[in-house]
């Protein structure tokens, strides 16, 4: 089972993503509510893939993406974006995000994207 770290400041989104992924045989190894915690947990848990919200307090998803990719250049990070954040997603892609999905997403969309990213 592939290990996933979920990063989002909204507990609701974390629960949603977690439920969907667990339902599709992914193992949720951790959750983080901002970029800082995400980086800490990434180092500790070494997940196969990270779902990363963009707008978060303390440290944004973009900054977290940058430092995680600096720490581990193979890190696979899927950005979870809201509508209208095109430029931020673009910045994330430039900085090595593996892919992205746009809220509100459907179950198959997120599963498909993450499976693709981890090469399943």
């Amino acid at each position, binding site marked *: 089972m592939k290990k996933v770290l979920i990063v989002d*400041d*909204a*507990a*609701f*989104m974390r*629960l*949603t993503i977690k*439920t*969907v992924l667990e*339902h599709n045989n992914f193992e949720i190894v951790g959750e983080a509510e901002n970029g*800082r*915690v995400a*980086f*800490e947990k990434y180092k500790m848990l070494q997940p196969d893939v990270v779902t990363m919200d963009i*707008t*978060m*307090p303390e440290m944004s998803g973009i900054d977290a993406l*940058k*430092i995680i990719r*600096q*720490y581990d250049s193979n890190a696979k990070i899927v950005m979870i*974006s*809201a*509508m*209208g954040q*095109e*430029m931020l*997603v*673009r*910045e994330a*892609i*430039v*900085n*090595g995000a593996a*892919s*992205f*999905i*746009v*809220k*509100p*997403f*459907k*179950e*198959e*969309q997120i599963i*498909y*994207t993450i499976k*693709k*990213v981890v090469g399943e």
Partner: protein
Amino acid sequence: MSKNESISEKEVEPVPQFMNEPMLEMYIFETTQMIEQLEQAILISEKGGFYEETSINEIFRFMHTIKGSSAMMLYNDIATLAHSMEDVFYFLREAKPTLVDYSQLSDIVFEGVDFIKVELIKIKNGDSADGDASGLIEKIKEFMTFLKSENPSGQSIESKKPETQQKYYIAPEKKITYDAKNFYKAVVYFEEGCEMESIRAYTIIHNLTELAEELFSIPEVGSGSDSDSELIKENGFKIYVRTNLSYEKIESFLQDTIFLKELKLEEISDEETFLSFKQTEGTNFEENEIKLPQVLENRISKEPINKEQIWKEVGNNAPQSVISVSVDKLDKLMDLVGEMVISEAMVTQNPDLVELELENFTKAARLLHKITSEIQDTVMSIRMVPLSTTFMKMQRIMRDMCKKLEREVELQLIGEETEVDKNIIEHIADPLMHLIRNAVDHGIEENEERIEKGKDRVGTVTLEAKNSGSDVLVIVRDDGKGLDKERILTKAIKAGLVDETTVLTDREIYNLILLPGFSTNENITEFSGRGVGMDVVSKNLQLVGGTILVDSTFGEGTCMTMKIPLTLAIIDGMNVKVGGSCYTIPITAIKQSFRPKAGECFTDPDGNEMIMVRGNCYPIIRLHKYFEVQTVVKEFHEGVLIMVEQDARMICLFADELIGQQQVVVKALPNFIKQTKNIQSLSGCTLLGDGSISLIIDIGGLTQYRTSK
């Protein structure tokens, strides 16, 4: 040319298929919480007359999250509304406009917040969130347009964004000689509904850069504009590549594209045809040339990130020290602690142990008792919530009222950190709101009238909370006109609530306003005075075992004191025996207990039994008579009198004997009993150490019964 494997084409259901109960609960919980924080942020900002950058950021983020979550739950009106407010705060954050009507902004945001609140209540009750926010959204858009026209400098932010991004592109090189000999044309179609097609296309270009020597596309992507996305949706994304790679390599690379629906890849035979595509498809060679994204390393070296420092900072991050637990679990825990308290009593007060010398057992039992009471205290403290959120809500109500009534009133908060059981808090918000509204609407005078009376122009309503024994007092005090005794009395007589001949104390007159069907204000306003008022307040409080006291000085102000028990679940009680039954009296109500001498009690002409204690006369209630229990103890000097007080009314209860003091867990009476027997003066029941059941007496009910008789 090939057709790509596509993601399963499932029918899109109206409700996301993975949504479940806990998710909905979490959605409601989190959104409610954010709405509350948001309100506070706005209130604080409004008081200061200015929105701090941190508040703007915070509000922006809340709106952003609400938008995302609501969209996931398919509550589209909430999502769109939150989106429009997010836009406003995005503008405030980025453009830092100087000319902002903050009061209007607050009004609009509050209106939006109220809309979301109403929808949340609907959702909570299982109704569909069918509110229409379009008018409101329109209003916000208008405000936004106005804001932009007032602050034209802010408009540059739209164009500013892409500009900064352009830096990461290298301009088309003037004259480069290419040596790659393979040319391809690819058309990529994305899955419908995958969103942000232009950025998806950009991702391909970004990844292809390393493999291609020359690369251009139609449309040129990178600005992330919606028109690009539309174009791609309609015609597909066309890519022209010059590369050394084979057809298979390029194909497999493009096949890997996420959300790829269809790929058309063809080889272009020679350079000329390739270049002709440039000219025919694109309008201008130079302009249409895609600017290649620079490699990642360049970007990093431009903006060096100090790894050490960031990692150090990150390392300092303390582990999470607060977790949220569902109230259900806490209720369950509380129940279990209650059971434990009972079982402890069952063990230590076991009838089998009576009159045995058990030194070691007693020691162990004492230790057990110590620990159980500590657990009990801890569990109770977990359930305690400060009143501050409830008080904050009152600030909001106050603000709205003052605006509507065009009256300046200040709300003073004292002791908002006082903590009360979670369940109780929910029950006092409504009564409190009512009291505040009454105070502002009926209590405080118009500003001019106040000046005439020699008072401060601005009225003050004080909201105070403090602990008093096992109760919490919540006091609403205003410095308004006070209650008019005469008017209350006339009104009460007219309404048939009291007899004309009855002589009442001041306090009793004030308490008349708590009776159903009483309202002194002839003018019904939007906020209060519909005839259902204070009696609802008092009923609501009774639900949680609370009471309300009214005090007032005419011309100087009114003071309403709500007395609420800290917690409902476990109380200190005195067990008394009446015949074969056992009753529990809350310790807090007991003033004293004593055995009267024979002949000390007397009977008044109406046949009511009384006793004189220290010069005061107290009515007596025989519990065996009241509850219709058989007992042999019928003479006062054979039993015991317990003097109890509630709402400044004192009575004496007559019981056979005292059994002893004990902590008891309050359990609601089963519905069956409620239906078959008159339980007006019982607030619940409890289990005793020996396994028998004791009924908990509601002193308030008894005192009222006696006074009304």
